[in-house]
């Protein structure tokens, strides 16, 4: 007899649970040491409140009604709930504020492999530290926490979500053409991107720039190779590189000028976390300077969250190499 559970969910039995727990404990200790206190928020939130943070409620997919007829949604990430907490419970507290969490979140399992419906997210949010100072702290602390979790070869991809859009603006590409271009870019359908760009009637140099920019990724060198129209964003990434160098982690970062993340609340730098043992990103994040303001407290913020089960995959692979 089978008693199914929904696809994309799973039972965790004691051996695996012990290992997951150990990973969370080590990462939590690392975050706590750096002043990031752990918080927990309700799994169910009012949908209207999540929508304040992002139009699509950050992709929340599971909804129900309470006895008053209000719509409740299962949170799809912790960033919006943390923003809500900061704007309410910490209304009078001076920034910066630092939080970490290890909490479950829910999304639909619609695309490809490794897309769970329910997953354990471990992450951190840094509120009130603007610009590259904040970005560098989040990157360095994430790398350190993964070291603690037993990973050795992990890297963080760093891009700027506004870079391509500002490039399109500066080249005078009509606004109604932006969305399909950005969609191809976010899927890295570079063949489709090339075809669309070629149909824009730009000069060859500009066409080349739009097609080749998303291919630029690697160390500091790519920031030198990015041409002038991508200016401001690349300037920001250069400044970030210098701070990461001071922290001794610059070699763990891969700049990726084609990186865009799908979530609508990112305003600048975006991150993705990789380990060669796992074929998909362990997690990601970025800077979201407008989100807190939507809850009534204008503060810059930056954060990053990872799927703990994927970290576990990478850690197990690392062990088998040792």
């Amino acid at each position: 007899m089978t008693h199914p559970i929904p696809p994309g969910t799973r039972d965790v039995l004691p051996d695996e649970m012990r290992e997951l727990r150990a990973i969370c404990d080590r990462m939590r200790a690392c975050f706590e040491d750096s002043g990031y206190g752990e918080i927990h928020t309700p799994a169910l939130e009012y949908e209207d409140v999540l929508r304040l943070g992002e139009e699509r409620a950050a992709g929340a997919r599971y909804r129900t009604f309470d006895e008053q007829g209000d719509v409740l949604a299962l949170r799809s990430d912790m960033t919006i709930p943390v923003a809500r907490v900061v704007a309410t419970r910490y209304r009078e507290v001076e920034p910066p504020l630092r939080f970490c969490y290890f909490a479950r979140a829910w999304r639909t399992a619609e695309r490809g492999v490794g897309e769970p419906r329910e997953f354990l997210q471990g992450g951190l949010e840094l509120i009130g530290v603007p610009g590259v100072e904040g970005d560098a702290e989040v990157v360095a602390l994430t790398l350190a926490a993964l070291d603690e979790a037993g990973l050795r070869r992990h890297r963080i991809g760093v891009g700027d979500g506004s870079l391509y859009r500002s490039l399109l603006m500066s080249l005078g590409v009509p606004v109604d053409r932006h969305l399909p271009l950005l969609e191809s870019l976010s899927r890295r359908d570079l063949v489709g991107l090339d075809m669309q760009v070629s149909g824009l009637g730009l000069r060859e140099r500009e066409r080349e720039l739009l097609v080749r920019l998303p291919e630029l990724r690697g160390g500091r060198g790519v920031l030198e190779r990015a041409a002038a129209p991508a200016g401001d964003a690349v300037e920001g990434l250069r400044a970030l590189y210098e701070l990461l160098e001071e922290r001794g982690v610059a070699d763990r970062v891969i700049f990726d000028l084609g990186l865009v993340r799908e979530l609508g609340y990112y305003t600048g730098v975006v991150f993705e976390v990789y380990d060669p043992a796992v074929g998909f990103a362990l997690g990601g994040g970025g800077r979201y300077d407008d989100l807190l303001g939507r809850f009534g407290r204008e503060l810059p913020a930056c954060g990053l969250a990872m799927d703990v089960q994927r970290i576990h995959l990478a850690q197990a692979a690392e062990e088998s190499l040792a």
Partner: protein
Amino acid sequence: MSDDLTIAVPRGALFDGTLDLLDRLGIDTSEVRSNERKLLFADAGIVTMRPSDVPTYVEHGSADIGITGKDVLLEQSQRHVYELLDLGYGHCRMVVAAREGGDPIGDALRRLGRVRIATKYPRVAAAHFAETGRQAEIVEVKGSVELAPLTGLVDGIVDLTATGRTLEENHLRVVEEIGVCTARLIANPVAHKLKGDRIDRIVEGIRGS
């Protein structure tokens, strides 16, 4: 994911073109050419498989890059893989075909309100008929699709055709073209970053050849 670059190579119609391409890049394919049953060629960093499995291996990172047809990518559009290059060879058309004489698809739509379509590409077929505002019942078959309209199973088919000869021999004719498909180079998203240099060298090599 090992440190070496692993390339997923499709057996079947794209096989020879792909091996020729790898030869031009200086990758030794002689062992692959001489051994039809072997699947894993560790020295050359090549794994061979049917084209529709290529996105699966690449998505998981079991292969870092791979070559497959655009038809496969269209059908498996949910896969998290990067599409890096149009390789140009393996030129085919994705078409709607029906029996010669008359208009079986139009007749079915007019009289029965829907058309029955057999295909190995159920997502592509469903999307094409939805986009053109026609109700279609999609019948997925695994073998020769040409048989389905001849036996009355369906009113038409959606399939890939290179020369059109198989269609012709089975008294079918192309009634619509959905798109042109060629071989594509795809990459695993993580490998695209962590093995960027080696992947770029291959991309540049192909662009230059």
